[in-house]
């Protein structure tokens, strides 16, 4: 999951990335993503992991880093089952 997400973020990002994005890197704060990129990432996650990110879940607490995202998604996928 983490790899897939990182790979997609790298496609979206305009920053020169020498090494792979760390799972703990602040995606918006570091400028890796802008808000357009973030929403595209959410669209990707919904498609890829067959889930629906609710408007109230679109908060920095769930999407700050790749780690936050995977945590959020895991809870989300557990809820679904």
């Amino acid at each position, binding site marked *: 999951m983490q790899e897939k997400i990182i790979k997609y973020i790298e*496609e979206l990002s305009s920053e020169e990335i020498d090494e792979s994005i760390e799972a703990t890197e602040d995606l918006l704060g570091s400028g890796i993503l802008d808000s357009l990129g973030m929403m595209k990432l959410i669209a990707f996650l919904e498609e890829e992991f067959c889930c629906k990110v609710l408007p109230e879940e679109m908060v920095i607490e769930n999407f700050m880093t790749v780690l936050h995202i995977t945590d959020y998604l895991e809870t989300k996928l557990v809820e679904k089952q």
Partner: protein
Amino acid sequence: MNNNYESLTKGQSLLWIGQEINPESPVYNMVMTYDLKIPIDVNHFEKAFEELLYRYDALRSVFVVKEGEPFQLFLQDHNYTLEIVDFSNEQDPIAVYEVWKKDRVAKKFDITTCLLDSVLIKLSTSHYVWYINQHHLITDAWSNGILFSAITNLYQKSKNGEPLRTLEVFSSYKDFVNKQKINTKAKEYWKNKIKNSPPVPSLYNKSAINLDTNSNRLHVKLGFERSKKLRLLANEKGVRVWTEHLSLYNIFLTTLFAYLYRVSGQEQLVIGSPTHNRTSKQTKETVGFFVEIFPVFATIDKNETFLSLLKKIQIESNSFLKYATSGASSSDLHRSFNVLFNYINADYPDFNGTPVVSEWMHSGHHDPRHHIRLHVHDLHNTGEIQLYFDVNNHVFDAQTQALIPEHFIALLDAFIDLKDQVIEQPSLLTTKEFKQITDVLNNEELVNTSYTNIITRIEEQVDKSALDKSIVFKQEVLLYKELNRKVNQLAHYLLAQNIGIGSQVAICLKRSSEYIITVLAVLKTGATYIPIPHNYPKDRVTYILEDSKASLFIGHEEKQLIDYKELSIRKLAIDELLNEVTDGYATTNPLINIAQQTTAFIIYTSGSTGNPKGVKITHEALANYINWTKEAYIDKHAIEQPNIPLFTTVGFDITANAVFLPLICGGVIHVYQEDNTEVDLSILDVIEDNTIDFIKLTPAHLNFLKGLDLSNSNIKVMAVTGDEFKTELGLYIFNAFKGKVKLYNEYGPSEATIGCIYHEFNPDKDKLPGVPIGLPIDNMQAYILDKYLNPVPQGVVGELYLGGLGLSSGYWDRQDLTDAKFIENPFLTGSKIYRTEDLVRLNSQGILEFLGRTDFQVKINGHRIELGEIEANILSYKTIKNCAVIVIENEEGLKSLAAYFSSPMPVDLKELRAFISQKLPRYMVPVQYKQLENIPLSANGKIDRKILKSINTVLVETTLEYVAPRNEIEQEITDIWCAVFNKTKIGVHDHFIELGGESLMAIQITTRINETFELKTPLNKIFELQTIANISAYLEEVITKILNE
């Protein structure tokens, strides 16, 4: 190389079409200037520029049409070179440059050969400007950023002697075009989203008839303090979203929605917003046109606050970002908005260490579909946010243009100040603008205010016109002297009966000399009169008598008064009294001192609580109005001793005009008494007699005049009042008079004494469906306010409030209602304004236009009806639990009342109708009925009148059984009626009025009958004969007569 022909991206085709539509306009010029305050080596700059063209293929693209379809070609060799202009030897290089620039920005591109215009301008040895204009088809703001850093870098390299051409491969726009994949999911999302798109709003009531690209840019700097506050707000919990920029984007967008709502009144709104569309590393490095515009939707709910609207926008803007994908835009999406919001999140770096001032220049044109484009930016990262308002010159005049930023910023400040406040609460107007509007509407300079009560005025006239005619009624003529004698004798009689100041006298008389004498006599005693139409149902008369606590009830004869014998009120049969008793009383003027605030009359109007309410009119208000009518309608038109008809119901306040106005001018009252028929057709007699000079009447009366030859009429002035005056009707009547008449539209609720706003109909200028109502009369003031009593800007719809000398002193014995409707004037301490609940706007000519009612009070055929009053009466019927009355319109726009109700038991509709008929005047009795399980309610718990309109009702035709046509003539007439009433079944005994018939229908029916039978049946026959059976019998008689001749 044929394979060089590339299709256009979706975004490009939309632009390409836009350019095709406006072939001569530089509508898509994107002009950037960069001030470089250093010495520039022109040679190196040229080389750097040349390299730009090599690197970025979009700069080398041209657009051609092949077989009707546009294509772009990426030229290998584009021999375009940078132009060098030297103004440094001019006396004032900057001034020369400014002139040059202004001209140059509008340079039109031939898109088949070159879409680029770039110049290096020398202003001095250490001040250059790089000017670059590109057609939008090949660039966008992001691209300009890339180009600027590239030229900075290349120039430095060239100066350093480094090679400019490297092996590095640059992202090409052509690749992007080839690889563009359209996201079908996004496309589907937008398609669904615009399914229920509202119409584009009309801002300040302005709309563009001809599309024009001409536009003006208004530049507003928000200031550091305000910008700082905005950033603080953007970072507050609940406001802050993904990034500060997005939070600011949401704040500005929310404010823009609130602004559009405030200047259009439209609750459902759409704003277009561009997205940079660069979502991959590769596209972020590509020069070319990527931007696409998508719509953002918002619905303003009741009591919407800035914060609650922001919450909606936060969700909306996230969805926007999610689905705004390359290639998903369409012309349908573009058509859904006329306002564009562009938040520019870009800043231009320095030029190799030298700070650069860059400017995005306005070409003087923009997409004609956009009435307003708001650009928000801080291009130089100064910390001060700036706004560009690009406004369409064709839509907004200079005066309105200047107000747009002011109104927007008023809301922005309110948002910063208190985000929890309702978006309708803050005032939009600046003090200056408020003053301008008040100057037009509120002529506070009082004129002719020296108060003389109407009785004194009449007595003065009696001295002047003693031997002139004052009243003509059939054969009866009363001279001024005689009239005054009779009035005085009755007044002395009444005084002797203890009637005087503080007494209230109900007068239920037909239009007659007796009516006029009684009204004047009551006023002479200092008492208040209450006119009650002679044909009112007993219940309503009883209600008025009891509610008003009248001390005397005056009727014609004992026979009439006996109906009310159970009421303890004193009763007087005036006909007998005047002939026998009063002759013995003094003939001198009683000389009672009548103060300004003494109530002259109380007029009962329909009330929403189920019962009519009495409006108190003071002597001061009455005198103010009558004095004004003398000037405006009589003196102004050089009419002397005017002949004026008394022909309207005494329960209608306009009738007071016909009583008092002639008597202060030495004129004649021509009395037209009502007969006992359903419809009062006195107007036809008035016209036929052709003796009058001035008439005040309703549009419904005017409808009766259609088809009459008025070219020889003596009427010089007509004041139309009581209902919406349609321009079409005005024109018709004006033409029927061959233009030899002055038509006035007079507006005024009873609460502001008969009339208070007026407009002279101008057949050349009045082009809207409704004739404007104009401007206030002497000593009256008008205010157009919103819900929060803020004055609204010119052009914007608001509620009309009235103030001035003519204001009623309130409702009789209804302090609660008086306090609710007559409120403290927030603009003039110590005075009151009356809330009309009428919607108006101040149009671009600076006069008022009437736009309908805010509440459920309606007018049908000139009758003011509170639907609530009818509903209250229906609810008093046995088992009925809930009900709603609405106005329905047939295909020809004719209005009638429909009642919907719920009841646990089946209700006999005919019985219900008969029940209501006993309670209410005929014009208030609904003709259509429907029993429902439940009355449909809207989300906020109100009766959903829109749904009701879609439910078919049953026509209730009183207690008559259906009788089919019995002969050929009846069949023909039935067919005509069915066609006009749009019904499939009408019985031959059904009544015209009860079917909802009115004058226009009568005209249609008469015309068709006359065509069918080749006859000349007069219009009033329908009202007289009422049923198909009767008309048929009459026609048979006429036809037989003709055949026998």
